[in-house]
């Protein structure tokens, strides 16, 4: 059971590394994603907040925590992601 859990955390870490490399490639070559700035902002921040959820739920073990902790984490993620998309929208 413990080894499965460890393995799962390692898979999450590998996913985080892959997603970071993806963001790196997208950020260094904006045109390969989309010509629309809004879409690029959405994708880059979407990847970041997906990574945050992985760190919170698997590294910080929120997944095993009480319901109120899970809801609080998700609420912060959604609030910050939507808020940032909103304030950055005018940039396009």
């Amino acid at each position: 059971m413990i080894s499965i859990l460890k393995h799962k955390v390692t898979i999450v870490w590998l996913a985080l590394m892959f997603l970071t490399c993806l963001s790196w490639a997208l950020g260094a070559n904006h045109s390969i994603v989309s010509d629309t700035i809004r879409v690029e902002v959405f994708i880059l921040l979407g990847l970041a907040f997906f990574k945050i959820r992985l760190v919170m739920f698997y590294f910080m073990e929120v997944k095993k925590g009480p319901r109120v902790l899970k809801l609080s984490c998700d609420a912060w993620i959604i609030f910050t992601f939507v808020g940032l998309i909103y304030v950055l929208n005018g940039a396009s």
Partner: protein
Amino acid sequence: MLANSSIDNAASQAKTMFGEELIWLFIFGDLCTFTLFFFIFGHARTNNSVLYHASQAKLNVHFGSINTLLLLSSSWFVVRAASAARKGLIQKCTRALAGAFILGAGFAVFKIIEYIDKANAGISFSTNDFFLFYYLLTGLHFIHLLTGLSLIAYFIYNFRANGITRQNHATFESGAIFWHMVDLLWIVIFPLLYLLP
């Protein structure tokens, strides 16, 4: 070292909540403070996109990306250390913590190189609004990083000196949560400062 029953007890407590409740209050307070900075930065960027784009181009995206990989890997080592601590495996735990420390210190070294590079180019926090935010966000994050590194060093020393006790194990889990938060903050700061189109 903890007796087996104590380890089981500690592990079962950890299943309910990793870290103590108070650390989570601190974490959410800190996250919300940074959220405020992120929103103000986003608003300022929207209102002066030409200046922000030109300034962002002076940052090295590769440094930012490598630092993200270093912090994520450091966090993974802390997860391994936490797993080992619950089983009372001191050596495995301190080795994983040493790995986390080295990677975290690597982040600090890259960041200092970046700061020196900017200083040599005549860039400071007074250059323009973008760099004011750059030094504010990365500076606050750097202070968190140094705090986290100090905690990791302390836990390595404490576990080696005293073994894993119920008390230092609980403190360690809270410290581990803090280290993951340092990672979380950088995951947002990185695209905001380095990657946005």
